């Protein structure tokens, strides 16, 4: 099947029901997306499908043949970071970093829906992405900074 990931088309020879997460990491070597729980409980595997955050452990590769898949590698580039990535650096959010690509992809999707979030909005949006290091306060501040950047304020 053909999958479009980060703007590039890939031919992959996998079963239709292989989870997208497995295809990205094991077949395509795109390892920014992480395996955490495999049952949509932690958010580490979050990618965008046509711009919407989804848990890639829950999606079969065959379901997204016609979609545009974006991983953390395609969200921004070192010379042109996404506003969320810039905010993450500014606030030094990451500790161990394992969950952070999922956190960033979730935040970027959320801010497409709501670029003027309250603290409560951010908590509602981000609480399904777990961080064992407990970086939640800095995640919240970074999301607010990214929102401000995206609003052009």
């Amino acid at each position, binding site marked *: 099947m053909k999958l479009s990931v980060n703007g590039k088309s890939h031919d992959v020879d996998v079963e239709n*029901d292989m989870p997208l997460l497995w295809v990205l990491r094991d077949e395509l070597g795109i390892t920014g997306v992480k395996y955490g729980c495999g049952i949509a409980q932690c958010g580490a595997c979050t990618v965008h499908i046509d711009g919407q955050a989804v848990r890639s452990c*829950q999606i*079969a590769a065959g379901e997204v043949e016609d979609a545009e898949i974006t991983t953390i590698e395609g969200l921004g580039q070192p010379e042109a970071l996404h506003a969320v990535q810039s905010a993450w650096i500014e606030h030094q959010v990451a500790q161990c970093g394992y969950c952070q690509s999922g956190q960033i992809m979730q935040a970027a999707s959320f801010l497409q*829906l709501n670029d003027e979030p309250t603290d409560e909005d951010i908590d509602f949006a981000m609480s399904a992405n777990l961080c064992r290091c407990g970086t939640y306060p800095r995640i919240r501040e970074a999301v607010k900074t990214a929102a401000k950047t995206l609003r052009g304020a």
Partner: protein
Amino acid sequence: MRVLTVLAILFAAPAFAEVGKIEINPPAQGSVTRAEGLQAFDRIYEVASHPRCSNCHVGASNRPMWSGPSYGKTRPHGMLVNAGESRIGAEHILCSTCHVNVEATERGNNVPHAAPRVAADWQLPPVEFEWFGKTSVEVCNQMRDPERNGDRTYLDIASHLDHDVILHWAWEPGGGREPAPYSLQEHVNDVLAWGVAGMPCESD
């Protein structure tokens, strides 16, 4: 806020899919007594108040619940999930972020504790369809009130049960989850019997 744009995109997609093997054969008019209609509604309420149904039929809190045999105790959906006024989570995190739309309902749903999935966009019912914690009389009066049941006749309700694949899932939830009582066909038959009886409620 770009919620309205997202909503427009989501609701442009087909919300329901034809999956039915359900027969909608109402009893002959006049053939169901009020008492039999009330008995049918008792069974309907067993379904409506079952966690598999009522966990999502929540009110203006917009917070789905986790309750039932596999949850230990009744509590709001983990992860601070709030489906918002959109009832699909468009304000914060879409239900479909985890409850992804997949064609094969059996795939994944048999994994305990994983997010259930169907071939439709996961969502809460409208807020006026609140069943969680409601009494039989309250649910009965809501279900027959066109202002609070989506302007549906009993035939429309039966048809809705046939066509909404999320409702089909309630009887085949997989993953060790307890299914809704009876069968979907029996539930549809009870709705039809209750309807032919004149949609009686104990409070009448």
